């Protein structure tokens, strides 16, 4: 183990990347200066300026070719194409394009469709400027035994963990996680704990709804964490119609589950009412906590370990005025855990919270990004923050407020300054959703990467 790590460290440094697994071994995080902070710790990381941002984009009827696409934007200020769309790869259908994630070796980008349950696997290493569709997984539902809505694509060593949102029996929120090999072979389904089968977990409070959404890990604590959103019926429903439907509004997740990472067994179901969505775990080696935000109740929750090793959840801050349902969506934590940006969809704002005292986050900054805002991705050094607009096809605002954009900002620690933007409607692209960074530096030598990959996978 030690030898492998040493070789890995040497090789990855020589290649200009840091393999994330090293973080778990206590490597200083400052060696990496770019890349996103919401990525898997098992993953190779970009150390310099990112060259591209891939935007997984929802097709809109009547806009361009009307289908989902992976849009590549050049974000390197040194490039002649800086600030422009350099590639658009249509995949067919409106699949409810949502989240995407790289394999641990970063050679492939997996992108899911929450509606059609397809997973599109793009080759992003052969030519990072021009991804190609390598493979499409179409049997996600049948292979998994009924999981619907592939959401988070999260890198594990040599494999991908795909969280689900729903099921093929009632299109409700009960679901599971599905594990695949990096080559797209089905491995296992891990069902979320329910009252009917807690799978050995402790029901820590009043709820065990079996819902799912996001997944993150803290490998050194052998911890995996999942959150809970809602089923197909709701995430595909017109937002206004759903808000007026008393039955539908009862169908949101109220739980976070902590798992034994190694055995994939749920340990404890924690009550976190109001649809806890994105999860971000701390990067610093002495920080034994993860954060989530609840979409409906507009709070920041901390999932933390106490002195006895027990895991708990507690609300640590409000986001905006919860009585106005600002609807916190994506958030992005700084790599030194000192703060985070959080977006609120309804008012189109991003807010920066200071985390000097992690148990007591304080909002210190806010600004309007657009009429609506959903995703935020920050570079590892925190200097660049990128924003997109779309939440879900049928939840986005209607009429003039339905702006669809990619906006690039610089952050100096006090203020966000816009650098450029791409209008996704004007460019006939569609609804811009999730962003992922890529860089030429990662693939300077494909042969060398092959060896490095094998080492990373064997960790």
């Amino acid at each position, binding site marked *: 183990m030690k030898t492998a790590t040493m070789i890995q460290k040497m090789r990855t440094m020589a290649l200009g990347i840091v393999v994330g697994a090293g973080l778990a071994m206590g490597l200083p995080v400052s060696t990496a200066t770019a890349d996103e902070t919401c990525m898997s710790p098992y993953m190779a990381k970009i150390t310099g300026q990112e060259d591209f941002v891939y935007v997984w984009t929802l097709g809109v009827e009547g806009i361009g070719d009307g289908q989902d696409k992976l849009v590549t934007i050049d974000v390197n200020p040194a490039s002649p194409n800086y600030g422009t769309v350099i590639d658009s790869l249509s995949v067919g259908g409106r699949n*409810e394009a949502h989240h995407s994630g790289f394999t641990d070796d970063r050679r492939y980008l997996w992108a899911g469709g929450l*509606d*059609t*349950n397809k997973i599109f696997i793009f080759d992003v290493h052969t030519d990072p400027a021009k991804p190609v569709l390598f493979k499409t*997984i*179409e*049997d996600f*539902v*049948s*292979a998994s035994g*009924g999981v619907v809505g592939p959401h988070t694509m999260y890198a594990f060593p040599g494999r991908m963990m795909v969280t689900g949102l729903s*099921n*093929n*029996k*009632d299109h*409700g*929120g*009960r679901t599971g996680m599905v594990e695949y090999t990096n080559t797209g072979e089905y491995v296992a389904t891990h*069902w979320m704990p*329910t*009252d*009917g*089968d807690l799978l050995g977990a402790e029901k820590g409070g*009043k*709820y*065990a*709804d*079996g*819902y799912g959404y996001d997944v993150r890990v803290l490998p050194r604590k052998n911890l995996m964490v999942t959150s809970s959103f809602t089923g*197909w*019926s709701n995430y*595909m*429903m*017109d*937002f*206004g*119609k759903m*808000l*007026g*439907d*008393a*039955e*539908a*509004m*009862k*169908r*949101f997740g*109220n739980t976070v589950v902590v798992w034994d990472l190694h055995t994939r067994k749920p340990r404890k179901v924690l009550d976190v*009412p*109001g649809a806890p969505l994105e999860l971000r775990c701390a990067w610093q080696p002495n920080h034994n906590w993860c954060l989530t935000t*609840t979409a*409906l*109740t507009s709070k920041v929750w901390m999932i933390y370990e106490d002195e006895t090793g027990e895991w708990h959840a507690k609300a640590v801050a409000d986001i905006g005025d919860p009585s106005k*349902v600002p609807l916190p969506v994506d958030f992005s934590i700084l790599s030194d855990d000192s703060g985070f940006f959080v977006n609120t969809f*309804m008012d189109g704002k991003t807010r920066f919270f200071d985390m000097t005292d992690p148990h007591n986050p304080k909002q210190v900054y806010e600004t309007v990004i657009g009429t609506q805002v959903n995703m935020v991705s920050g570079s590892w050094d925190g200097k660049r923050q990128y924003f997109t607009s779309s939440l879900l*096809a*049928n*939840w*986005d605002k*209607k009429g003039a407020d339905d702006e669809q954009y990619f906006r690039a900002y610089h952050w100096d620690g006090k203020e966000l300054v816009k650098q450029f933007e791409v209008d996704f409607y004007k460019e006939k692209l569609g609804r811009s959703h999730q962003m992922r960074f890529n860089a030429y530096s990662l693939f300077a030598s494909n042969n060398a990467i092959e060896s490095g990959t094998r080492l990373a996978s064997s960790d």
Partner: protein
Amino acid sequence: MPAHVTHADTGSGILALGYGPLEYELPEPGSYGLPPLGAARDAQVLDEENRRIRLHDLYDGRIVLLNFMFSRCSDINGCPLSSYVFNRLKSTMQDDPELEAGLRLVSLSLDPERDTPEVMKLYGNNFRFAGTRGDWDFVTTDSEETLKPILDAYGQDMQKLVDAKTGETLDISHLLKVFLIDPDRKIRNIYSVSFLHADLLLNDIRSLFLEADGKGAVPALARSGSVLSRPGDDKEGYESEDYVTDSLALTDRKGEGFDLLGLAESPPLGLPPIPEPPDNILSREKIELGRKLFYDRRLSINDTFSCAMCHIPEQGFSNNEMATAVGVEGRSVRRNAPTLYNVAYMEKLFHDGREENLEQQIWAPFLARNEMANPSVGYLLGKIRSFADYEGMFEEAFDGRPIGMETLGMAIASYERTLLSANSPFDRWFYGKDETALDDAARRGFSLFTGKAGCSSCHLVNRDHALFTDHRLHNAGLGFENSIGDAFKPSRVTLAPGVFLDVDPEVMASVGEKPPGDVGLYEITEDPADRWKFRTPTLRNVALTAPYMHNGQFSTLEEVVEFYNRGGVDHELLSPLIRPLGLDAGEQEDLVAFLHALTGDNVDALVLDAFAAPVGDPGQNSGRDP
């Protein structure tokens, strides 16, 4: 349990178990389950006086033991054994009043040629010494043509040994089977020679007695009469901060097949025979094919929607989780998904009554852009044709006819037509004359239903059956209110258990499409007088099909009763049948209690059958490239 008895079957020359003392200790009656094995089918037979009667006349609410026999049977471990065992039971009936009143023995001949009613009477006379108390009927049929379907229905095999020259029947060979049939005409056990013993039969019969008294091992039914009919993550009580989840594991959603054809051929108490189109007579093959299609999500343009995604079995074959439906790509449907229970009887389909039969009806959701969104008839037929797992199924079900627009509709209609549910507490009380079946509140509710509240003027109750609908469309004012009134009202929105917020209507409008109009029957007839008329729904199983009304506006039956009690929404076109009812709170509660008594006793069996159906998804035996 009988299952562990391992005596060898016939042919050894050793007397069967039933002739001697039982060699093992029986479990306590009621300490074990006797799961239903399907419906005990009806048929015409001849009694000892040569009268034409129905088997269901004999299955008269008592427990029935049925054996197939013939008078000239000589195998000591065959018919004589069952007759010997029946004779022992008859003897026991002499000094056991409960058994005398609650058990009926029926012997049906396998040899109509020789076992005429007269012969059967003589044969029965052999057993008169057992005593006069209790009934043992000896029945036969008028021909082998009449007998054959009965044997098929009960799965009783029979081989005749015939003289090649004379054509005379020399002997009849059959596997000994005795059927235990409960008061609801469901088969609960089938005995073979290896465990046909009077003591064991008595044990099972007493278990069924206990079950009827509510003391048996069957799971206690909720007030609605079902334990399975509930959303898998039940949100009952979500309005309260004290809400506690009671979610079911998806991996436990398993079932077992049910005899749907038998159910359709012998509808439960309270339902008339089903109207069957002459060109689409039910068969097992059609029902099985229709059931497979019904749960196949590949039957939509993007493989996400089967019929069952809106007509969810455990949610009353409707959808308890939303007011109005959502289709492909989340497109809004403006009406509530109606239940499919007892849809076989509906003369008008859809809330606006625009379709006349199930065979045709299915094409509307198949092709509707906001439902399953198939682009054309040919596209869908071609798609199914390409699925390896359907190969030959249409041809088998339709006498060689391949899949086509007609056969696809006929197959799905066949499955839907079998979803019959009745024999509710109300039926057992009203039609079954069981005074204990209905509680006082529900009885008072029934008096209001047919009297002061006038519900039965549209939700009809007939002398011998009840469909609780007049098959007509009426204007109760709800559609009028939604069309003419303010569609987006300030609304209390649930954020979490016990957490609510009044959300500004403008905020809701900013993220919602314009609410769709709905003028009901007018949209079909274009007659202004038909504005806002909607179909009278059946009320059977209504406790399982929340939310209510054509647009799912009311979450509870209490709200529905309250709406009608205030006379609907008054306006120029309001049906004259709708008027303020003047019911006090107690009377409204009684009406609701009555509505809860309309849940059929077989819904769990139908839900389990649905759970056993395969769910079609891409890559699952589809024969298509992944």
